[in-house]
């Protein structure tokens, strides 16, 4: 449709080809080939069509690399987050430190390593665990045919590979701390696999090095939740205010499996997040939770799809947005029940709180139901804080400012409390509190 966009960045892509070849040089042949194929697909595909609601509110051109070249990952992580200093593995099961798209170092509780859990860089895993990686890597990509997803598949510097073997259950979370810097293109790919009957939690702590760093990060994630497995994943994105961030998260949930994802979006100048979840078996349970808290001139755009390919399962989406100053949030969500989706129980809700007159939030929840006998609902709302709530708090002596803080915090809390890992959760709470301090 938009063929006129096709060769927008044809120039710099010659250098992309070099990078793809260089990076593929360390990969097994099958992966090097996959990179080249992805680059060709990237080059051949047009920019997403803005008529479709997925890109209605955000200009895809802003996610093209343009003059940016892929960043060579820094080999120093910097100061460790508190969660990754837990040498005795009391609160975490293991951690990985990533810089500019590549995992530099990872460590596991020895007891968990014994259970053959793998947490390492994806490129390393492709060499050392081909049996685990090769059948799954890029297998979920076709679902949406996203141009930028091909870009990360071609140019990724590395990423997280996480595998929990069959029937292994782990009570503490794994933490992946990923820090980015510079102003180049940072591409990464991650692959998470919860094997049959396993149970695990993994959190992604995404930050940038300094406030002035302004990279373009294209991050692709594939999440496989195999039959009967339970996986809980959190993404806490608190990058600096100049970062452009485009995560694409593809999830596949099999029969009797459970997946809960919690996404916290606080940072970035421009964010376009896409998350799709396919339910391909009965008895599964999916929760897609998220908060967005934007201020200044941040522009944060989220799209979600829960696709009940097979029915007799449940999905619940709850996204909550707070926008202040001149910030803008767009949320578009689709709930799809396929022809074989009989018995699906699916709900989505998106509530938006506007803290200033110039802040803006758009919300478009959609339903696409191709069969009968399903229970579906969607709810969406946008508005300022309810004055009656403020008056009620005031009647207990609480100042209007403290009342607003209390109400907004409360609005976000049911999602925040689902962030695993106490230290990370507390960091989210204090980041929310700091921001509220500036905007209420």
């Amino acid at each position: 449709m938009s063929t006129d966009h096709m060769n927008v960045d044809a120039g710099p892509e010659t250098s992309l080809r070099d990078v793809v070849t260089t990076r593929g040089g360390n990969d097994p042949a099958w992966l090097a080939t996959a990179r080249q194929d992805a680059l060709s697909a990237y080059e051949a595909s047009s920019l997403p069509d803005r008529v479709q609601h997925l890109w209605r509110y955000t200009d895809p051109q802003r996610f093209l690399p343009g003059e940016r070249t892929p960043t060579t990952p820094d080999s120093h992580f910097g100061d460790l987050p508190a969660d990754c200093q837990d040498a005795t593995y009391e609160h975490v099961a293991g951690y990985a430190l990533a810089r500019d798209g590549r995992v530099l170092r990872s460590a596991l509780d020895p007891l968990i390593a014994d259970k053959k859990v793998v947490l390492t860089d994806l490129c390393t895993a492709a060499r050392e665990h081909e049996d685990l990686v090769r059948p799954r890597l890029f297998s979920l990509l076709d679902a949406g045919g996203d141009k930028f997803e091909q870009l990360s598949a071609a140019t990724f510097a590395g990423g997280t590979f996480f595998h929990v073997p069959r029937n292994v259950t782990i009570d503490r979370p794994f933490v992946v701390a990923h820090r980015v810097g510079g102003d180049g293109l940072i591409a990464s790919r991650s692959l998470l696999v919860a094997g049959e009957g396993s149970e695990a939690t993994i959190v992604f702590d995404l930050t940038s090095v300094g406030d002035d760093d302004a990279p373009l990060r294209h991050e692709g994630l594939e999440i496989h939740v195999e039959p009967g497995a339970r996986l809980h994943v959190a993404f806490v994105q608190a990058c600096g205010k100049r970062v452009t961030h485009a995560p694409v998260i593809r999830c596949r949930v099999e029969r009797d499996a459970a997946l809960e994802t919690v996404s916290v979006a606080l940072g970035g100048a421009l964010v376009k997040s896409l998350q799709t979840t396919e339910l391909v078996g009965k008895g599964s349970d999916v929760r897609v939770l998220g908060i967005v808290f934007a201020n200044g001139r941040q522009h944060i755009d989220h799209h979600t799809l829960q696709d009940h390919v097979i029915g007799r399962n449940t999905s619940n989406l709850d996204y909550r947005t707070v926008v202040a100053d001149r910030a803008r949030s767009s949320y578009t969500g689709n709930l799809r029940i396929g022809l074989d989706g009989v018995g699906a129980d699916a709900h989505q809700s998106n509530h938006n709180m506007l803290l200033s007159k110039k802040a803006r939030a758009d919300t478009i929840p959609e339903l696409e139901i191709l069969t009968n006998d399903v229970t579906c609902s969607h709810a969406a709302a946008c508005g300022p804080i309810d004055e009656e709530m403020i008056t009620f708090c005031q009647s207990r002596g609480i100042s209007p400012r403290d009342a607003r803080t209390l109400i907004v915090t409360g609005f976000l809390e049911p999602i925040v409390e689902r962030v695993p890992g106490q230290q990370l959760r507390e960091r989210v709470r204090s980041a929310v509190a700091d921001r509220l301090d500036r905007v209420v």
Partner: protein
Amino acid sequence: MSDETNTPVLEVSDLHVSVGGKEILKGLNLTVGAGETHAIMGRNGSGKSTLSAAIMGNPRYEITSGTIVYGGQDIAELAVHERARAGVFLSFQYPVALPGVSVVNFLRQAVRAVRGDDVPIKAFRPLVKENLKILDIPQTFMTRYVNDGFSGGEKKRLEMLQMLMLQPTLAILDETDSGLDIDALKVVSTAINGLRSEKRAQLVITHYQRILQYVTPDHVHVLLDGQIVKSGGPDLAHELEKHGYEWLEKDAA
């Protein structure tokens, strides 16, 4: 000294209040002295909640003329939270839910705001515990979200818990009795009676005399179409019960 003790806690004079351009209170006069409990009775729509909202200072209720003097001071310029800090408390007829805000957190903030000082957790805990006991509220209440998914009775008990925590000088109870079963009514009455003292005053708004069997008022007033049309002692409540409000409507006409 004697001057101070003689100052009424609340003095409402010729109060006119409009909501959305419509006049609801039409020249209301009411004086509540220290140590006194007054009952205000009146059928639905007579303006009882409007009076309580005006005393609390809800900005949606516009005072077009008249004054509200609290502790000798005209409080027209005070915002709702400033009135609360000065010792005014309103138990809402329809308490507002605060999703995501736990009861314990809310109480802590309220107590801190009203006292103007943080209460050490060591002192706060036993205080809460004691009040929970008085109100027969389970400990599990504390981690629930304020009024979120609460039954009518639970909301009213939570209002009473807030009152006991804040120890107000003037407590206005807007139909705190409605929707309560007899056991809950007794518990709530105990809380109200426990707060009675020489320095405090209470305004019990109700349209049944039922609660007045447990909380004996010093004075009873009847509110009709935005004005107090009759005042008397506790017996007035019984008469109203017998004769209904029509009896007064004729008088007023």
